[in-house]
């Protein structure tokens, strides 16, 4: 085992260990009823935001493209998930919640992936920052499109229309235009969220460390050099972008089915930027960093509730301070010294073995 490989293995192990231990602790807290309602209510959203942050990190940190419409994919996933789950329940009479949830998440991922392909094919062939502009537009287009989309179940069949008046009278609406997804049966569970986070980590970490992942990173670092070595640029960029879109769609489905109502205006440009903040704060290309920052930054505004109306001000100040401190050389050196014994615990011993 080379040094680099071992380092990667340790990093991946730590990432998985943190997620699994957090799950076990929280799950036992739920069973002992020692958890506060406020924290319990946030568990599923946290899982969704982790998946969003990790998948966006794949686009921004690993493939080096800027995407500003990640919430658009989440929106696609959320509404697809609501339609799939609703159709299974009202159209086909499927009562099993787990089955519906799984199919909804898969459906959300597929449709969001399809949207990713449609956007990626023309845009990822270009050079420059076009992806940022197109994904920005995509997020807005999706929001406005959902505003005029009416989907419902009528006599066991799926009804789809862009005009409310063309929808038959006896339709059970699933997506009702500007009202969004209405009367959604809440079927998301924390366990499903945890499994989704694990799947995301497995997919993303394996992709990063695979042959394809190395190609993606080579393109990020020097496109011309990579191309001259025969790496097909568009193919690998598509791979990263579409994987991220699928994962965002899955997160969206889980997020949508966690609330009885989902509105298109929840997935605005601001929400995309929010995910971008998670990624940047966690470190570009750092998967574990994304997991931690998505968790902390989702919980932080709720912890700051005590500050009432000033909490978003405090939140902004905390963000700035974190940015400053994580980039300050003195503080970094200090942190390295503190964590040195921990690091040695892994590397030192194994180095001795390897030697």
């Amino acid at each position, binding site marked *: 085992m080379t040094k680099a490989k071992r380092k990667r293995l340790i990093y991946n192990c730590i990432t998985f260990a943190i997620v699994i231990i957090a799950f076990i602790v929280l799950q036992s807290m739920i069973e002992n009823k020692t958890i506060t309602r406020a924290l319990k209510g946030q568990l599923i959203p946290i899982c969704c935001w982790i998946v969003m942050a990790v998948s966006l990190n794949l686009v921004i940190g690993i493939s080096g493209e800027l995407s500003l419409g990640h919430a658009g994919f989440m929106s696609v996933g959320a509404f697809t998930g609501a339609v799939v789950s609703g159709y299974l329940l009202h159209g086909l009479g499927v009562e099993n919640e787990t089955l519906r949830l799984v199919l909804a998440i898969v459906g959300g991922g597929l449709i969001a992936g399809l949207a990713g392909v449609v956007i990626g094919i023309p845009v990822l062939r270009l050079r420059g920052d076009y992806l940022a502009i197109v994904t920005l537009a995509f997020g807005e287009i999706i929001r406005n499109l959902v505003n005029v989309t009416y989907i419902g179940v009528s006599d066991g069949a799926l009804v789809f229309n862009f005009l409310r008046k063309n929808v038959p009278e006896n339709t059970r609406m699933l997506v009702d235009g500007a*009202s969004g997804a209405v009367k959604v049966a809440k079927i998301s569970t924390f366990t499903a969220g945890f499994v989704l986070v694990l799947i995301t980590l497995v997919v993303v970490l394996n992709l990063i460390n695979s042959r394809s992942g190395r190609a993606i990173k080579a393109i990020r670092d020097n496109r011309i050099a990579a191309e001259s070595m025969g790496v097909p640029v568009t193919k690998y960029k598509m791979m990263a972008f579409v994987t991220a879109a699928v994962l965002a769609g899955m997160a969206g489905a889980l997020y949508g089915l966690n609330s009885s109502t989902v509105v298109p205006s929840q997935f605005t440009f601001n929400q995309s930027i929010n995910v971008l903040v998670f990624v940047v704060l966690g470190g570009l290309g750092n998967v574990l960093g994304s997991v931690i920052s998505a968790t902390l930054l989702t919980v932080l505004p709720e912890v700051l509730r005590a500050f009432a*109306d000033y909490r978003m001000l405090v939140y902004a100040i905390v963000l700035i301070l974190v940015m400053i401190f994580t980039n300050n050389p003195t503080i970094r050196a200090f942190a390295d010294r503190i964590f040195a014994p921990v690091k040695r615990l892994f590397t030192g011993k194994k180095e001795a073995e390897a030697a």
Partner: protein
Amino acid sequence: MKKFLAFALALALCLTSVAALAEVELTIAHIGPTTGPAALYGLATLHGAEIAVQEINEAGEFNITLVNEDDEHNVEKAVNAYNAALDAGAVAIIGNTTSKPCEAVSALAVEDRVIMITPSASSEAVLENGDDGYKGNVFQVCFTDPNQGLASAEYIVEHKLGEKAFVIYNNADVYSIGIRDTFNAKAAELGLEVVGEEVFNDETTDFTVQVSKAQELGADIVFLPMYYTPASLILQTAAAREYKPVFFGVDGMDGILGIEGFDTSLAEGVMLLTPFVATSEDPAVKSFVEKYEAAYGETPIQFAADAYDGVYALVAAAKEAGITTGMSVEEVCEALIPAMTTITVDGITGSMTWDETGAVTKTPMAAVIENGVYVIDAD
């Protein structure tokens, strides 16, 4: 002497604790957007509720602690705010102020058995429980959107405001569509002729087409189920074309006089369906408006009045049900649900009763704008 002092102190302590025992301690939570784009409404409901709580505490019998949780007019934050409110020990909820957050929160509250009285979340989905009827634990102080359409049509016919109605509505807004649908249905039923209708959307800034069509068709009453911003543009366009029908709006019109740079003389004679008029001579309304202006330095809008009445309704139901200190959230909810449907509350937005669905019954009032202020329509 020392003994006597100690005795007196003990006696005093006993007396105060007896006095405290007589009061029912309740913690209630207000949930609404006190920051963000809808903060205007959330702050109004918060302030209205604060005044009601202050009055009730002064009157004795109840000692209410009001907790405020901000939902930012966002569904995810609303759920967090609701959980935080319950963690803070709230046994009843005044909220949410806006419809979509209220739908999300009430879906949780129906399972957790938490009573909710919403001042101003007017969509029907707030009351409906998925596909199986009504939640039953959620009560509205305001009319539902469809009921505003019904009440408007009834008011126009009853007071003979016009014969040919024309409707302009926003077909990208649930609120506007909902009111327009029931207005048209009720108008047909009552024999009010709707000569035509025109649509617009959030981006529309030129209303020449809509207004000129109404003018060509000779409509003498123009129904505007929309918020005040587009309504102000319609009034400007109509004034420019010297078209003077009766303009009739709904609660979203409340606030038209507050638009900066808007010539309020254009709104002269505009009527709107509103449960609350701040200039009313009613002593209860007067006292509320005075306290509100003294505390917050602005004239209360109807959202504040709705929240004020919501708190009074909750207390009236608590009296009826004999709520005592220390009852759990579920016990309070189960006790208050039957009580809510039996009480009648004479509030500043009218005399109100509730049915099992949670919808309110009260007489709609119409206000007319005269000399730049709202006054209750005398007819």
